């Protein structure tokens, strides 16, 4: 009787979603039964055999019309309000202490990157009882990361970071699907989320070796892609140095300012002319087409790792 099983509730808001669902199910079920019951009753009671001609000729009643409209509206707005409350919880920005993972969707696989540089394909290990935040980006078409046991999904867009977060509550292994149709092998863009007890998770992380942290990979890339030929740490360089800029505001040539975050770094690599830092020439070439989303993520991690460094 596996097919009758209620879907697993494995995240902090899974139960909340199910509660709204069940309440709506009960009220709607009641409404359907009421209407179906009335129709059947009328069809039997007032069948033409029993009642060759209609007896009743009232054909409108304002109080009735207003009454049922108000009742229906009240129920609908109740559903709206409850659903909206949970939605704002789910879709608000992740708590600061969240464990931050990066996900890249591409036709037809999911790539995940942990902060320590560990990478996974179609599998994502996460700790339970701790918020986990996933920064999402697609390398090609729109995908959607969907974990039914967490009652959560979010679309994954090309050229724009989006974010989702959740708190797994139950250790186990859960389906992970692509929910937005993305081409031929859409239904094979699937995998597993493996939620682990914190100690198991630490163990699992500890076993990863050799790859170096993401930031270290980023440092290598910055050299090999030639970024450092301009972005030198000396203050005389023709481009700003990366140290200490992450998370801080930066003044732009047009007089406005912006905060250095993932999206800004990504844009500066792919479309450097969009926001030029004050007192610098728009001399940087675009790396669009020459760099992958993973590489951008590594470089971002590298710049982030320099956030405490003093910028001269």
């Amino acid at each position, binding site marked *: 009787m596996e097919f009758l099983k209620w879907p697993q509730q494995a995240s902090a808001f899974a139960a909340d*979603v199910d509660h709204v669902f069940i309440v709506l199910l009960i009220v709607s079920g009641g409404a359907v039964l009421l209407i179906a019951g009335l129709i059947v009753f009328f069809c039997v009671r007032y069948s033409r055999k029993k009642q060759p001609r209609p007896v009743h000729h009232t054909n409108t009643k304002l109080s009735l019309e207003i009454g049922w409209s108000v009742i229906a509206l009240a129920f609908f707005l109740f559903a*709206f309000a409850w659903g909206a409350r949970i939605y704002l919880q789910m879709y608000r920005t992740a708590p600061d202490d969240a464990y931050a993972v990066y996900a890249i969707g591409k036709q037809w696989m999911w790539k995940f990157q942990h902060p320590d540089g560990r990478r996974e394909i179609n599998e994502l290990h996460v700790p339970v009882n701790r918020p986990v935040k996933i920064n999402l980006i697609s390398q090609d078409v729109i995908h959607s990361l969907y974990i039914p046991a967490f*009652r959560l999904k979010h679309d994954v867009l090309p050229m724009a970071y989006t974010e989702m977060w959740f708190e797994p509550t139950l250790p186990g292994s859960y389906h992970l699907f692509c929910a937005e149709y993305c081409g031929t092998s859409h239904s094979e863009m699937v995998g597993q989320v493996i939620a682990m007890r914190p100690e198991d998770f630490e163990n699992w992380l500890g076993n990863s070796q050799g790859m170096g942290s993401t930031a270290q990979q980023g440092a290598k890339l910055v050299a090999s892609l030639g970024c450092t030929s301009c972005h030198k740490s000396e203050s005389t360089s023709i481009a700003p140095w990366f140290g200490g800029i992450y998370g801080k505001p930066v003044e732009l040539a047009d007089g406005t300012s912006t905060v250095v975050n993932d999206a800004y770094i990504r844009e500066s690599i792919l479309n450097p002319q969009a926001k030029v830092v004050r007192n610098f020439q728009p001399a940087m070439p675009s790396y669009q087409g020459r760099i992958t989303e993973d590489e951008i993520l590594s470089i971002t991690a590298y710049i982030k790792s320099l956030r405490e460094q003093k910028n001269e």
Partner: protein
Amino acid sequence: MNETALPNYLQEGTSLGSWLLTRDHKRIALLYMFAITFFFVIGGIAATFFRLELVTPKGDLVEAATYNRLFSLHGIVMVWLFLIPSIPAVFGNFLVPLMIGAKDLAFPRLNLLSWYLFMAGGTIIIGSAVLGSVDTGWTFYTPYSSLYSNSHVVAAVTGVFIVGFSSILTGLNFIVTIHKMRAPGMRWGRLPLFIWSQYATSIINVLATPVLAMTLALIALENLTDLGIFNPWKGGDPLLFQHLFWFYSHPAVYIMILPAMGVVSEVITCFARKRVFGYNFIAGSSLAIAFIGFMVWGHHMFVSGQSPYAGLVFSFLSMLVAVPSAIKVFNWTTTLYQGSILLSAPMLYVIGFIGLFTIGGLTGIFVATLAIDVHVHDTYFVVAHFHYIMVGGAVMAYFGALHFWWPKMFGRMYPESWARLAAIMIFVGFNLTFFPQFVLGYQGMPRRYHSYAPEFQVWNVLSSAGASILAVGYLLPFIYMAWSWKYAPRSGPNPWPATGLEWQVPSPPSKDNFSGIPHIEDEVYAYDQLFGKSDEPHSAPS
């Protein structure tokens, strides 16, 4: 006046030319009927294949690329070549002039042109299917459709683009006709509810379809040139496409359901022998739906990356648009109260409609509830929701209308017991096909999946089993209607009997519908006058 002496519209020439060049709204209605019946079969065949594929979790019957083309073709054909034209183009065309006391639509030539545009678009769509078809789904989301798909996207969107003009012109024709060509005495408050629903639908057709046309034109341009509007690598925005698409396609779902609601109102009063309950509210709710329906498109994009605050607004407005639908259901139900009810085949279809539409509408509330939609969006739950409305609702009503007005169209009855059997099979088969999909969706099975996780199999098998019952249910009317066309007993002008102008002319009507200009003295649905005085119903008023 001796109306029977005139030849009926079917007898006005039998040559192919007399059909293909006709300007008679009734003949054009039949042209549409044949065309959409053909398209319905094509869409159904595609569905048969992918329901068979889904019997097993593995993708073993057809390849993934084929599967994707099957559901895309199914969606495109069913939406644009069957549902959108179905009731308006067939029954709207046939009935709008008859119901308001006019000789024809305001622009008969334009009406014929609409049909040719429809056929041209339809031919291109089917042609593109023969050449290899599209694999984008009926929703054509970018950047897949614009940059990544290797299928015949340009041909398909061109076909839909052209079909769109047919809807726009028909809508325009209906609006002008309803405003300008009502017979003396046919005040707005006496218009049959079917006319109100056609009127509301036409407004949507005229206002929303151009947006679709523009959006599809952009898709074609993106495919053919470097335009970049939806191309994020060029600074374009793929989500803009979704906004534009749903700005049309949400109202479009009401293009499919409003006319069906009009049919329900006509049939239910007739077979309850009672004036419809809450005429003003049913008519007004059609207009309310048409109006609010334009402001809820973002409910298809709750998880797309659209701002959560936009999500709140769209969720709220979606709740409002459900109220007029609820009002209709309550009024129909109340119409039955103390009536004199005959469960003939059209009535069975219509009662089936009310039940299934209620489930479809209420699950609309589920998916409009933000927290639930984050989970069920793009799963089988949504697939079940809209099939309850579009198939359980609109297709049921189409069949109801077909049986109800068949005697008027062809002057012959259909076989009643067969028709009841078909109605019941369709109802049962439908529920068995689509109810399991609600469960699958809540359990987390995404839609548009060629292969799926093994634990979803039982419900998929049930669904496919239901689909086979449904298929037989749909097949039956083809057979007995074809038989009835030639062999069934003649029906007379008003077999039910029903009020309404269309029932006061012979069946089938003459080319000009009325032999003079009718004057309307009765209120609409005057069933109390028809049956109120004595136990014996007298025949329709002359």
